[in-house]
């Protein structure tokens, strides 16, 4: 009888402990992830067409590998779309995430039709993020004529 009572005590205690552990902030972090992805895509790179915004640059990097972009402040400086994408995209994300040092990211850019462009994908950040327990994901489509791009951003707590 006493053993039964002790078991009831422990059971109630465990139940209360488990119910007190709450997952906080999912909605907020989903909003943050979405806003980060959208904001990064819209930023102007400082280069001219076809590298005007980050999303333009990524599209060019995936589809028109030979095109070069002139730097707005000095048109003698020319770079490949991929070079500009590699230079600007992770740098912008890194700067934003300095205000959230507990977060890490992984970004995947690929054509919507995986058979298009030989199935190449571009990635930035830490690939281990995908395997972490609690992650927040945002997806964006960049709509263009030749093919649409699918861009996924994953954030997690370090």
């Amino acid at each position, binding site marked *: 009888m006493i053993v039964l009572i002790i078991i009831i005590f422990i059971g109630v205690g465990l139940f209360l402990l488990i119910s007190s552990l709450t997952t906080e902030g999912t909605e907020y972090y989903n*909003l943050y992830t979405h806003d980060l992805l959208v*904001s990064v895509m819209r930023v102007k790179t400082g280069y001219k067409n076809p590298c005007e915004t980050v999303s333009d640059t990524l599209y060019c990097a995936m589809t028109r590998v030979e095109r070069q972009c002139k730097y707005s402040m000095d048109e003698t400086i020319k770079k490949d779309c991929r070079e500009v994408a590699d230079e600007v995209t992770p740098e912008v994300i890194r700067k934003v995430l300095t205000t959230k040092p507990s977060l890490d990211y992984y970004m995947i850019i690929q054509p919507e039709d995986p058979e298009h462009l030989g199935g190449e994908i571009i990635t930035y950040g830490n690939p281990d993020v995908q395997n972490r327990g609690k992650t927040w994901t945002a997806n964006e489509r960049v709509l263009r004529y030749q093919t649409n791009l699918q861009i996924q951003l994953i954030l997690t707590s370090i």
Partner: protein
Amino acid sequence: MLRKGQMHLMEYVLLAFFILMVIFLIIFFLMGWNIGTTSSRQHALQQQRATFLLKTFSNSPYLNKEGFKEGGMLEDSKLTVLECSDLEELVGRGIFAEVKIIDSITECEQENYPRCGVWKFCSPGNKQFTAYDTPVNVYRTLTRDVEIGILTVGFYE
């Protein structure tokens, strides 16, 4: 015989007392749990309020550039002329907000516009506050440039 009977009786009374104690303890624990969920509910409501304020500010038709349906494209000219009293009229008192372009330190006034990148509204002073932030874009009206910044919105009691 009598002692045995008395002991038996005592056992019975003790057991009854113990059962009653367990029931009362369960009731107290449940009350405590209710208080606990109320406090975590309050925290959830606070976060809900903060998320709403973030989205309201970031998607506000008073501050956004026309043509960006998803919102989050705040015009620097509109931010420069926005005042604390406008914010209070729109979303209520006890709110503060800040927009800071990455790598900017100069606070915007009408005199130094557009060579600035920080806007502050309704500072909380020394009061205790709750604040949340999210990335936004800032559209430079005069140069048509698009930069990235952090929007921070908070409330204080």
